């Protein structure tokens, strides 16, 4: 049978755990606000950059360039974004599973660039080629890291080691909708034939269409990677909030159950002691009377 002292210790331990989970929840709430603000500020940059790329592609139809080559069924690179730490529910395992599914679907030599320790470890354990890993940038993404990631991918693409580059990350739709998705970021999408300029105008490029694409495409890649990293960071914090909230609630439930048991045990102890005292007193009285 459990002792009163043992129950007291367990209660104390669970209360401490609840304090930790509550603190983690509050920290995650603050961090997500910060990340969402950064996402909001970054959104026009990514949106208009995509618009510029669309316009450039529209006006450079027919220009042959390595960044606009039609997607080849050759080798691919995958940039996969996860978190560095756990305690965020199924967030890491979901995005890791999505990355592995994509690698298996491609069914060919895939080179990986891992952002986040969890992704790096997951891919290395499964013996996939991790070309480069970036740690410590998942919670608070920095644009410089995105640039390094895209530089690694562009280098592989330029050298012909890969024919296409994909990015796997978790898209932040809302606090409750965290969706692991895969997007192709290189080569750039070739526009439809119907997407030509309605007025038949020509675009002037400085220095030239090919040189402009050569310069703009890696910048666009950095912007895409940074956008994905911000989304992933928001998702990680959102998952952590939910996970820590559930943990805090579980702690509260356990504390309630254990408190009840503790009180019952304490009460029965008191009752037993009282019984013993009364029985002792009665025994004394009987002895005196006889």
């Amino acid at each position, binding site marked *: 049978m459990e002792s009163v002292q043992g129950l007291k210790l367990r209660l104390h331990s669970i209360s401490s755990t609840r304090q930790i989970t509550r603190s983690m929840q509050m920290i995650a709430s603050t961090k997500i606000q910060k990340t969402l603000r*950064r996402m909001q*500020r*970054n959104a*026009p*940059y990514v949106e*208009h*950059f995509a*618009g*510029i790329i669309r*316009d*450039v592609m529209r*006006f450079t139809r027919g220009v042959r360039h390595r960044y606009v080559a039609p997607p080849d069924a050759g080798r691919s690179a995958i940039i996969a974004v996860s978190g560095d730490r756990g305690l965020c529910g199924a967030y890491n395992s979901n995005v890791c599973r999505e990355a592995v599914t994509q690698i298996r679907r491609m069914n060919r030599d895939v080179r990986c660039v891992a952002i986040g320790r969890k992704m790096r470890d997951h891919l290395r354990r499964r013996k996939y080629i991790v070309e480069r890993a970036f740690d*410590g*940038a998942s919670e608070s993404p*920095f*644009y*410089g*890291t995105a*640039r*390094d990631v895209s530089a690694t991918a562009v280098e592989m693409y330029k050298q012909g080691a890969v024919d296409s580059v994909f990015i796997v990350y978790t898209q932040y739709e809302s606090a409750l909708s965290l969706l692991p998705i895969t997007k192709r970021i290189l080569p750039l999408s070739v526009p439809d034939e119907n997407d030509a*300029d309605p007025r038949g*105008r*020509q*675009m*002037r*490029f*400085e*220095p030239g269409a090919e*040189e*402009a694409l050569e*310069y*703009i495409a890696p*910048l666009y890649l*950095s*912007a895409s990677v*940074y956008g994905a990293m911000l989304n992933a960071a928001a998702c990680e914090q959102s998952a952590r909030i939910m996970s820590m909230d559930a943990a805090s609630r579980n702690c509260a439930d356990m504390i309630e159950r254990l408190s009840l048991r503790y009180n019952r045990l304490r009460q029965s102890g008191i009752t037993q002691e009282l019984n013993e005292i009364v029985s002792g007193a009665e025994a004394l009285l009987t002895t005196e009377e006889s």
Partner: protein
Amino acid sequence: MEGQTDKKLRLRVLTPRGSLCDQDVDYVIFRSAEGDAGIQIGHEPFTATLNEGMLVYRANSEAHTLVVLGGAASVLDDEVTVISEIADHPNRIKQTIKELARARAALAEEERKGSMDIQVMEMGLRRALVRIDVSAYSIIKGRAGIMEFGEDAREAGNGGD
């Protein structure tokens, strides 16, 4: 130029850290890869890569300046979109570069020390170019009085880090 037409250009200057300008303007001048380019209403579709330099625009009868360190500009349907990894107001650019360099240094790991040095040097070069640019604009402003340029900008032009 003023009063000739009510039509205005829409100028957007965007960086990953936020939007620096999103308003109607009379004209824009930026430094493209092949020299300074001036954009007015009715300009042909145009895309340019940008060099490090100043971007000048006129809005509400006042000239404004921004420092843009590379990037790209697109002109289409009287909308000018400038995207740049690093751009800011002249009086804040020094602080921005410092912050970026500091954050970058904090992230530097042993394995990428080699590439870091090149990037730090590149950053230093860009900073020096901007200093020259900002000081040149201060002189032009002093002579022609074409734009309001704060004390900080002059300081950025003269001072080093």
